[in-house]
């Protein structure tokens, strides 16, 4: 029966499977990260400002 499935459908199903596996893996990866992990995320352009002593104001 599998031979009757057209190539585009097989390809799409394979990619769908890969996405689902990635989602499950990513969920597990995220779940085990500590809540304060986000504090370590640093953008280079903001780091440049901090390095030069430019204040990063929080917008209202």
């Amino acid at each position, binding site marked *: 029966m599998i031979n*009757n*499935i*057209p*190539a*585009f*459908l097989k*390809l*799409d199903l394979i*990619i*769908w499977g890969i*996405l*689902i596996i*990635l*989602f499950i893996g*990513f*969920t597990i990866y*995220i*779940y085990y*990260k500590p*809540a304060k*992990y*986000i*504090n370590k*995320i640093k*953008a*280079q*352009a*903001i*780091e*440049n*400002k901090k*390095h*030069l*002593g*430019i204040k*990063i*104001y*929080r*917008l*209202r």
Partner: protein
Amino acid sequence: MSIQLIILIIYFFFIIFLGILAVRKVKASEDLLVAGRNLGVMFVAVSVASEYMGGLGTIGTAEVAFNQGMGVIWYHIASACGLMLFGFAFAHYYRKYNVVTVPEYLYYLYDIKTWKAASVLNVVGYWFFTIIQMTALGSLVASVTGLNLQISVLICGLAMTVYLLAAGMWSVAFTSVAFMFTIGTGIPLAFWWVMQKEIPLLSTSAGVAGYAGLANALNGAGLDAVSLFSPFSLGGMAVLGYFLGGVLGIPAAQATINYSFGAKNWKVARLAPVLAAILILPLSIWTGSMGLYARAAGLTTNPKLALGATLMNIHPIIGGIGIAGIFAALISTVAGILFGCASIMSKDIWQRWLHPNTDDRYLSRWTRIWILIIGISSAFGAMTLPKILQQAFFVYSIRGALMICVAFGLWWRRAHPDAAFYSLWVALVGGIMYQFSLPINFQAYFKLHISVWCALLSLITFVIISLYSRWTTQTSNELPPFINFRRDLEEKEGNKND
């Protein structure tokens, strides 16, 4: 009155009711703009997915399949990759600073002039885009109801504005669940019906159901089923174009990603776009197959009508549910774009830039007023400006440049505010020159999609200016044009002392 029309009318009123139902969730401006940053994974994922599944992803993919075959599946594969890229690499950066809009993040990364430029360009671009998408929505409704295009556009535009006015992002989140359910049941149900019930009825299908019958019917119509069923039927350049569009178009597109800003925490903000990628992937299989059926059955000669013609020619209840699915895909996109445009207009331009010393109630009021202004003006624009369809280039030209500014600001130490500012304007000017062939016909020489052309221009500009500029203490050392939290704190301290 046809059964398809009755189903569409019932669905239409149900959606408006659902959008208005969300009003009890709204207490402050943050509830309107980012749903109080309280959305869970499912709300964010279905909002992102249903916003992304617009006219291009439904009617557009059926049109491409009608002409060129099932290679169109790469459209949604590329879009899924763009969404995953956003979830893996960008969402937590935005979430860390609790941003409401993409231009606001450019303020953190760069400076005030970049923030102002990005705000203005985004608002103008999305305003055009709202009008364009409303025209597409009106065309669908007009083709089903038999009303004229202008009346259809006006009814849809006003209805959408009403439910967005009620609760902003909460309304979008509530209605998105219904939209996703409708898209996820209506379109596959119609697809299943076509494959199992309609294809065997074609004389050329030899009474066989499924793709084998569709292949027989295509061969019977004098077409080459093998090449139309090939996943590479569009050619490498088209697939590359889809990937560049997905990767450049999503990580800095306000209308698509602003639901991530409303996520209850950074984990939700990262996971939801990846889930949205899973939700959107099968869509082109369903719509593309129905597009090919329309061609095999000879339902129309106009590729743009392939999907609509299929749904109007099958069992009326199944077709009506399928049309409701297409309607859901279109209206969720228009609502997302309208809301994204109104968010930037009210938060960045109106409050922070023009009326900085105002309070939360002022922002809530003006967010609603701007939803009303943009919604009504777009509906009237769609009724009266048919040439607006040619202005889609405006959004395509700036979205790649925005993505480049955000990506370099995150990962490149040399990224400079002047580079970000000028790369936005170069992309816009380059886009106008490309679109209108000023002074020469660039398209004839370069043969690139306008978004790729503009992204290349802004990339070159960004890199060159960054390499020749230095960060100094003067760089981006302007004070923001509004109260900062420290002043708030000082005022609170002062009040306590009093």
